[in-house]
């Protein structure tokens, strides 16, 4: 794989950090959700973890340095019940969309194609968790 230009590396690193934070949020939220929603949250946790490791591998292959995941993240607000949990998931999913839009803009071919489908997936999940639709999800 040819090395990625600095802009592409920065966008990919931002996506990786965002995905790591999203996986953390799903872990926190899942603990406050009941059966059906918890299963959905666990699936989301897997997807975001997989996305983070997948992009990290691609970035390293392309000559970049992947950010390490933090062990703790500052949540925007306390999560103590199911409503807080779904709100958190709406926020983290929507917040990933601009990161993927940046990655899409900085890349081409397969990487751009993946970035576009991830942007669509994140925006869709934000609404599935009860978030309002947005013209430019963020």
């Amino acid at each position, binding site marked *: 794989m040819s090395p990625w230009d600095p802009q592409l590396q920065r966008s990919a690193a931002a996506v990786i950090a965002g995905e790591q934070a999203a996986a953390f949020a799903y872990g926190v939220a899942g603990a406050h959700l009941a059966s059906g929603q918890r299963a959905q949250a666990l699936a989301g946790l897997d997807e975001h973890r997989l996305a983070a490791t997948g992009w990290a591998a691609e970035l390293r292959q392309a000559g970049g340095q992947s950010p390490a995941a933090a062990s703790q993240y500052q949540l925007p607000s306390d999560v103590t019940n199911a409503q807080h949990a779904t709100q958190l998931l709406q926020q983290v999913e929507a917040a990933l969309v601009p990161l993927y*839009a940046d990655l899409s*803009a900085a890349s081409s071919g397969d990487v751009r194609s993946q970035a576009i489908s991830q*942007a*669509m997936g994140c*925006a869709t999940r934000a609404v599935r968790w009860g978030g309002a*639709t947005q*013209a430019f999800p963020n």
Partner: protein
Amino acid sequence: MLVASALATGTVVVGLQGCSISSSTSTSAPGEDYRSSASVEQALIAAYDAVILAHPSLAGALRPIRDEHKAHLSACGVPGSTAPVVTATSTVRAAISALITAEISAARAHSRAALQAADSHWVRTLTFLAASEASHVPALRTVRELETK
């Protein structure tokens, strides 16, 4: 049902425009892809207007989504070609289902256009458009569920 097919036809046209973008990037005049995306948005706005007109009870749920397409249209920076006159289907269920189909086609057309586009700012915009339109699908499904219970 006649009306449903009118909307469906509009959707097919949208899809075909998406195809023509991807197959003729090198020969298309500059600005053509902006106009093509603007036309997709204009057709969606017309479709929402028709459904709201035929089913005023849906206005509260649909108008915010329609307005998001207005914002998308502005982001295209050019006017689209005039949208075909659309009449909404007689049942709420069919009308919302047709909007879902139109949103899926639009998301597909914009993601395809994003893959082909050269200007990075425009790629970013198209990625947002595709993401927003994909997210309209679960929102419309919820509206359909609530309205046809």
